[in-house]
């Protein structure tokens, strides 16, 4: 059960933190269609956060709500991947991060539709519909911008090089991952790796981008609460009102 709770926090924190980062683009996007798509993705992710953290709160059964989990935990207790808390950079970094995560997220949710937990399967099925679209959009943009102008190609390649060392954490299973896999709640992460690699290889090739020659698993720790220095700033901003006005109702 503690492992299940922890794992649910990972799911919820991933969507919360990525949703937060994307929402920073609101009103600042390069084209109206892109603004709308980003806001929509953020909205989907916040919705998924409500479901995952809602279930986490139920499983924990300690009287906390999804909002309590989102707004009243400090960085050490957050379980999201480090990849997702990286600053947005130029839009290239944002989109590349999105694609690399979407490709993983899609496979994970697909597998979760067969979870031994009906609640998990139900949430996964709902989220999968949205994430299928996220992946479609982000892989399409990676292809078009990778194979666009010289500048867009260079930016996308630089973005890929930058975020690559953070991608391995998605597949690095620890005790929590093993426990939920054993219980049939979630798949073995190692099973997802070849699927992810295939998607990534295919999209990057179509995008005329080269897979970086760097250890893709150099950066880890987020799932265990050891984050980058960026997360603290995200939370200071995100949690301000709940922290400053404890107990108020909004």
């Amino acid at each position, binding site marked *: 059960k503690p492992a299940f709770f922890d794992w649910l926090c990972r799911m919820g924190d991933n969507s919360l933190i990525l949703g937060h980062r994307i929402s920073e683009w609101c009103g600042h996007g390069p084209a109206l269609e892109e603004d709308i798509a980003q806001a929509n993705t953020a909205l989907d992710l916040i919705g998924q956060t409500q479901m995952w953290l809602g279930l986490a709160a139920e499983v924990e059964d300690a009287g906390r709500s999804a909002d309590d989990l989102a707004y009243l935990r400090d960085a050490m207790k957050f379980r999201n991947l480090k990849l997702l808390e990286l600053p947005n950079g130029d839009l290239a970094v944002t989109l590349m991060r999105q694609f690399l995560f979407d490709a993983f997220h899609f496979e994970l949710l697909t597998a979760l539709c067969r979870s031994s937990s009906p609640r998990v399967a139900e949430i996964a099925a709902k989220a999968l519909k949205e994430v299928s679209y996220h992946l479609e959009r982000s892989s399409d943009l990676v292809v078009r911008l990778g194979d666009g102008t010289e500048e*867009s190609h260079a930016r996308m390649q630089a973005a890929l090089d930058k975020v690559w060392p953070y991608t391995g954490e998605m597949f690095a299973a620890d005790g929590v991952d093993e426990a939920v896999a054993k219980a049939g709640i979630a798949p073995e992460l190692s099973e997802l790796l070849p699927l992810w690699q295939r998607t990534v290889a295919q999209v990057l090739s179509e995008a005329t981008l080269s897979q970086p020659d760097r250890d893709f698993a150099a950066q880890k720790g987020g799932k265990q609460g050891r984050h980058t220095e960026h997360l603290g700033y995200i939370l200071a901003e995100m949690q301000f009102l709940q922290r400053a006005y404890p107990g108020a109702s909004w």
Partner: protein
Amino acid sequence: MSPEERAFQERVDRNEKIEPKEWMPEGYRKTLIRQIGQHAHSEIVGQLPEANWITRAPTLERKAILLAKVQDEAGHGLYLYSAAETLGISRDQLTEKLLSGDMKYSSIFNYPTLTWADMGAVGWLVDGAAIMNQVPLQRTSYGPYSRAMIRICKEESFHQRQGYAVMMKMAQGTPEQKEMAQDALNRFWFPALMMFGPSDKDSVHSAQSMAWKIKMNTNDELRQKFVDETVPQAEFLGLTVPDETLRWNEEKGGYDFAEPDWAEFFEVIKGNGPCNEERLGARREAWDNGAWFREGLTAYADKAAARRAASNMAAE
């Protein structure tokens, strides 16, 4: 009036819709471009004061609602730019006019959003005032504009209710929350009244626009209507409208109220509002930083078209 102009005016008078490819007076076209363009720009710039609180929204639910609202605004921008495009001006041209300062956006968005209560006040008062303007425009004479307005009004009134709900939570919340709510009302009341434009006696172009059914009511009519609807809402919230002269006038069946500070209004229009530079700066930065993105997509589209052409050629 030429025979064409007369025929045109008669169609307008009969409440027929004018469609893009039909003949229209140059003034009609220009006025519409200016009005629809300004409206579109307002939707786009109007994202910024609210985007300012998305990352700080106090609950997941409120964050989702605010995201959806900002997304809607971008969508409204899209409809309106499309409507303007039917008049022969492209979205990029309109954007350049915005960024160069050639075209304006609603001056309300040059005021900052300083507390969470402002998310309530903006929804309640700003969207409220916008709706007051827009509802009659659903019957405007230009077809594409009228249809855009119908879609937009539906969503806007939803936004206004959400804003009022935020305001309600704040007004009924802790003393600090109530203080924020009152402060938000204090700050947004007069700027909201300014949204209807200068007093009728100072308003230019109005008569022609009304004849063309581009403008459906006078500024003062709409302002009065807004005050009459909003004051009871404020009372219901337990908040005080920041106007000591406000009182019910039985005779006219509406409130007497103080004029906004028109000197401030013209200062803001001129670029000296609290956030003019931030707002336009943010949009310029977004546009400039996005150049590589737009160019990349265009280059890909060109390449893809060339590839398709080549493979069609090969197939022939």
